[in-house]
């Protein structure tokens, strides 16, 4: 389903909505709220004073009447449990502190001030595009800062509960459950925050273009490409991205030879970029009367959908080999075909893009060139090359065609990622777009690879 307006992943791969997690509205902040704001959530301090005097319960947090809880106070919350809670609180406070330092809190505050100064400049709206960008950065910085402060506030609340319980003679079960709930939610929120940090590549925030091409092997491979197309469409729709199949070239008997998908929404590229590579399927061929076991491949390419003004890459004309699909025959007035495909190869690196979805040749050429630039920028970034000239073409081929995942339908059911080792036997869910665990595993894998790489360097 395509969603107009701000396409934001409503529940991203990292989010398993809790029972009282608020749904964030359209156009809301980038990062989910740290801890649910439950309308019936009593401020802990107020509750502490009241519960110490044991008034009739008015708390709506627990559906169980207070007196029932009271009865099992000591049973449920033995001192042992309290100690383990106290330990958890210590751990999470430490984690919050670590994350606040790692996220560059001070730097962030300074950044925010700079951006606010910029936005209040009288000439701010003179450059609309730049203004939009500044505002978007401003929102990001504010959200992040707010989130980091909320983490701290939540940790402090839990600490207060522990401190008060220590002062008091008896143990207040509801209070401790409250603290336990805070810790649980906070842990989830911190996980989520960390994952967002994994998406800090220069293009991760952008929308994505995904190209799926059937490998050799005729109808089976073309059918497999079609299955993958469906899988990614479903995934994108679940993230509430705006998904458009912009080009689709049908196979002769079934399936597709290739397709191009545009996924508009924040962080689409960051999440989906790890899907690029070769996807292998093993199954009984539905196109073969004998139902023989068949292995097919499809290639997936992912590129960021970059705004035109960020593609300030100059590529010398002589480095480009631009070819157009030929209508054949005498051409010109003799022929009328809507064949306007454009294919551009960057000669030094061998990187090739093709664009067929636009309806005029010039439009296809413009779009193909944009895609080529985006692709070269991404490759340069991957290879840590400071300019296009430094790209090693041989490495591109090896990296972009690497087999990344196996989907075995027969003789057993298993989807296994070659890189991360993550696997599941619930193949149907995966084909229905349940890619979260795979994407999450890959992002963590990539992050740790980068981290250990940095350590090696230092």
């Amino acid at each position, binding site marked *: *389903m395509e969603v107009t307006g701000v396409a934001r992943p409503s529940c991203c791969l990292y989010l398993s909505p809790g029972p009282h997690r608020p749904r964030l509205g359209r156009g809301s902040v980038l990062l989910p709220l740290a801890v649910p704001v439950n309308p019936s959530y009593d401020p802990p301090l107020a509750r502490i004073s009241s519960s110490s005097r044991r008034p009739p319960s008015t708390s709506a947090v627990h559906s169980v009447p207070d007196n029932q809880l009271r009865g099992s106070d000591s049973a449920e919350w033995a001192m042992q449990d309290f100690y383990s809670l106290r330990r958890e609180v210590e751990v999470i406070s430490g984690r919050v502190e670590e994350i606040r330092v790692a996220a560059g809190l001070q730097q962030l505050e300074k950044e925010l001030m700079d951006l606010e100064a910029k936005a209040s400049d009288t000439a701010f709206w003179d450059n609309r595009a730049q203004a939009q960008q500044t505002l978007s950065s401003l929102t990001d910085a504010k959200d992040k800062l707010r989130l980091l402060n909320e983490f701290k506030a939540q940790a402090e609340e839990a600490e207060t509960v522990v401190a008060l319980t220590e002062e008091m003679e008896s143990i207040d079960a509801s209070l401790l459950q409250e603290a336990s709930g805070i810790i649980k939610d906070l842990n989830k929120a911190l996980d989520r925050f960390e994952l967002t940090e994994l998406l800090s590549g220069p293009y991760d925030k952008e929308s994505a273009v995904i190209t799926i091409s059937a490998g050799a092997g005729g109808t089976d491979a073309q059918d497999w490409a079609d299955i993958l197309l*469906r899988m990614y469409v479903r995934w994108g729709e679940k993230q509430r991205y705006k998904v458009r*199949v912009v080009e689709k070239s049908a196979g002769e008997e079934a399936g597709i030879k290739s397709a191009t998908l545009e996924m508009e929404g924040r962080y689409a590229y960051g999440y989906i970029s790890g899907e690029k590579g070769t996807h292998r399927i093993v199954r009984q061929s539905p196109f073969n009367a004998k139902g023989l076991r068949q292995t097919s491949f499809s290639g997936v390419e992912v590129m960021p959908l970059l705004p035109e003004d960020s593609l300030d890459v100059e590529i010398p004309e002589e480095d480009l080999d631009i070819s157009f699909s*030929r209508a054949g025959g005498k051409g*010109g*007035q*003799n*022929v*009328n075909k809507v064949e306007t495909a454009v294919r551009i190869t960057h000669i030094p690196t061998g990187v090739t893009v093709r664009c067929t979805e*636009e309806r005029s040749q010039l439009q296809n050429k413009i779009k193909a060139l944009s895609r080529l630039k985006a692709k070269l920028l991404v490759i340069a970034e991957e290879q840590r090359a400071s300019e296009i000239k430094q790209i090693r073409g041989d490495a591109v081929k090896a990296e972009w065609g690497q087999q990344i995942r196996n989907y075995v339908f027969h003789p057993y059911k298993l989807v296994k990622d070659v890189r991360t080792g993550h696997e599941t036997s619930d193949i149907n869910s995966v084909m229905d777009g349940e890619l979260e665990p795979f994407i999450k595993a890959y992002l963590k894998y990539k992050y740790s690879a980068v981290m250990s790489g940095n350590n090696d360097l230092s």
Partner: protein
Amino acid sequence: MQLVHNLRFTPFTFCRRLSATPSLAARCCSSPPSPTIAAKPLFLRPPHHPSTLSDLRQWYSWAYLLSTSVGSSFLLSDGGPDSSLLLRELRWLLEDVLDTSSGIHPHLVTHPDDDSHRKVWLRAEIGDLYRLWRQRIEERKPFQYVVGCEHWRDLVLWVREGVLIPRPETEMIVDLARDAVGKNPFLRDGLWADLGTGSGAIAIGVSRLVLGDGGKVFATDLSPVALEVASYNVCRYGLEDAIELRKGSWFEPLRDVQGKLAGVVSNPPYIPTDDMLGLQAEVGRHEPGLALDGGVDGTDDLLHLCHGASSFLQPGGFFAFETNGEKHCQFLMEYLAREFKGSFRSVDVVSDFSGIPRFVIGFRC
């Protein structure tokens, strides 16, 4: 890449663009719809026809099957489109006919899932869609006539029966003119002529990309239908002040500017009469012979244009003509050298994107 999208006109962006120049906006956008409203490009018609997703899917499946049944038969018989090209056209037809503002997008139609009861709004009745696609396949009616438009360069032009559909090859004439002006900036603010303008494609392309504020294009055509279509397109791009349409054959309506033209561009009829019978059905059966048939060897009008260029161009003026290919180009090169000794300089042949020598260009001495 977003910019690229914006170049494709939707009615909305078009109006916004026009409103940048208020006087034109008043004339084009707010004026009551002209009587030719039904003939406008499909994608600009109002989405007043309700239907359901399931009915639309049913039509799409039917059209899909009809298209795949063609296989390579058209290709083998006369070089026409094969199934895969027809399917691409079908998708574009869907894009043009479907109102997406309600959240229904083409891929919902082509990826059947649920929601089939959902209402959709179309720019043509569903019955018309069956008729249109039958015309496309059974009568070989050109796709551009079916949807009433041709995407050409960054333009979307209205086309209809009686007007030649501008070809992708011809897009290059605008680039050739731009190159010429780049080297000779004084041509930028001169008077230009697009002879046999048809839909007005070249005139609009040159006016928008090549000419400065002082420049002007005269677009001539003999056909009243062509002039009606060109006039609509010129108006749609807000170029009424920059392009003047004149009725008549080639240079005939331009006597008042003889010897004063800074540029002459044309895609004249150039198909040899004998070839007319063997043309791809879309072309031979549906496009106007007047715009295609160039006489016995296809050079009748090209020669006429060369003669005209020698007397209508100002000194230093530029010309570019599209031809039928290598034979024509060679012939014209020799003809110009022989018959107009000393009249032209830098005469050259330029190949199209397929590598076929296609254009003859040069400057008046």
